[in-house]
């Protein structure tokens, strides 16, 4: 560590997610993982053993739709919180056109980005759309309560769509989780609620400038 007298040695922290948003996120995340595990068990016999995590096939079948309801309500909360920040703008198209630089990690070649980049926005809208499809088709195939509410032909189509949409969400989830791991310093946004100023400078400079202007950026308290 350099001398404490230099202000440059105190990294700044920027708040990114308030406690409510973080709780909302983790309820959604836990529901999603439970749904993926139980759903994959029904999707393919080679993963049927996963029903053991839920107390067997009958219980997994009972719980899966209820967890789905929890996820739908929880994700709706995230949607209301974040939809505005995820509206597409010109920077996003420019960012997308430089996807090779994104993948290579050459951030210096990318345009300055607000709170979310185009990749994050696609994750957001992709999840929103697919979760809507999953909820709607899930109701159709919820045998216990809605087994008689639709025709068998409709239920067959719902089953196929449900499976396809579920695979879609798992793919998006892999991108989402991997991006959080790859881009170091991201996960603390959802655990402690803040990121370092350097993280903001590197990945979301436009957002950092806005936060600085609002006076939301504070120096880390001395240890």
């Amino acid at each position, binding site marked *: 560590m350099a001398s404490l007298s230099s202000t*440059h040695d105190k990294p700044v922290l920027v708040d990114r997610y308030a406690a409510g948003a973080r709780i909302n996120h983790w309820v959604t995340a836990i529901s999603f993982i439970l749904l993926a595990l139980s759903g994959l068990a029904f999707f393919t016999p080679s993963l049927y053993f996963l029903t053991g995590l839920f107390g067997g096939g009958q219980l997994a079948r009972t719980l899966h739709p209820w967890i789905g309801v929890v996820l739908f309500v929880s994700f709706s909360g995230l949607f209301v919180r974040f939809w505005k920040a995820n509206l597409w703008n010109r920077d996003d198209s420019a960012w997308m056109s430089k996807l090779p630089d994104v*993948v290579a990690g050459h951030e210096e070649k990318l345009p300055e980005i607000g709170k979310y980049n185009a990749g994050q926005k696609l994750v957001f809208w992709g999840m929103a759309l697919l979760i809507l499809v999953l909820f709607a088709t899930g109701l159709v195939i919820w045998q216990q309560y809605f087994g008689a509410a639709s025709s068998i032909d409709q239920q067959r189509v719902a089953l*196929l769509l449900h499976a396809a949409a579920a695979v879609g969400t798992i793919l998006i989830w892999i991108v989402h989780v991997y991006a959080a791991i790859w881009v170091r310093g991201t996960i603390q946004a959802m655990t402690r609620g803040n990121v370092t*100023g*350097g993280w903001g400078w590197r990945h979301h400079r436009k957002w950092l400038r806005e936060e600085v202007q609002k006076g939301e950026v504070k120096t880390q308290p001395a240890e």
Partner: protein
Amino acid sequence: MATMELVRRSASSSPAFQPGAQEIAKLIDVSKCIGCKACQAACLEWNDLREEVGFNDGTLNNPHDLTPASFTVMRFTEWENAATGNLEFLIRKDGCMHCSDPGCLKACPAPGAIVQYSNGIVDFDHDKCIGCGYCVKGCPFNIPRISKADHKAYKCTLCSDRVAVGQGPACAKACPTKAISFGTKQEMKDLADKRIKDLKGRGYANAGLYDPPGVSGTHVMYVLHHNDRPSLYAGLPDAPKISAVVELWKGVAKYAGLAFIGLAAVGAAVHHIVAGPNKVSSEDEENAVRLKEKA
């Protein structure tokens, strides 16, 4: 006939149905049926089932549909034959057809919850059934019913427990007109041939055997006087086969889905190895501090 060798089970990799030496079948001769419902009573009795007291909907259908407690129902159709000017009373005993290529077994996610024996019987193992209702979607004949009491699927077993000890199914035993016969599939086909010849001689030119090839044949077959139009008989499917949607879901979609998920996971790992972590540099941090100080 006592052969009950298991040849296929749901949610397991097993080969397509190869009929054993003692492939059996139940033959229902619709032209001989008088609609007495003795078969329904025998089914309830042998399987120790109690159907709820229902209501009369103005037809002879009672109960109105298959239920978790009624594995078989007589379906009555009044049909005006335009060619002859006759009103025909068509009665069909509905229930599981015991397909050689069973849609229920294909759709079932629980290993071993649906099994197929070498004699052709398709049976449900209730200890393994999870009550998801996928069999209902898989079945081309709309047969399985999910119990509201124990959330498990029920349908005709073809009296597998009786067949295993050399007996015929309870319904066949109870039928007073011998409209229901039971024996090897070949015997039943031979019997059907005789009946069809007889019916053709009586003016039913389109009489024939209903053993639909779309599901590779069934182990419950009908002799129909109007085999050119099976759907006359309370909507018996003209050309039943496993729905293309179900085939897609349990076929390509399953393998493609798992492949995509696997590729994405591997792709992420490879990317991390090749590109390395995307780290914030001390320069980035200093720039942020400078930005803050300027403000």
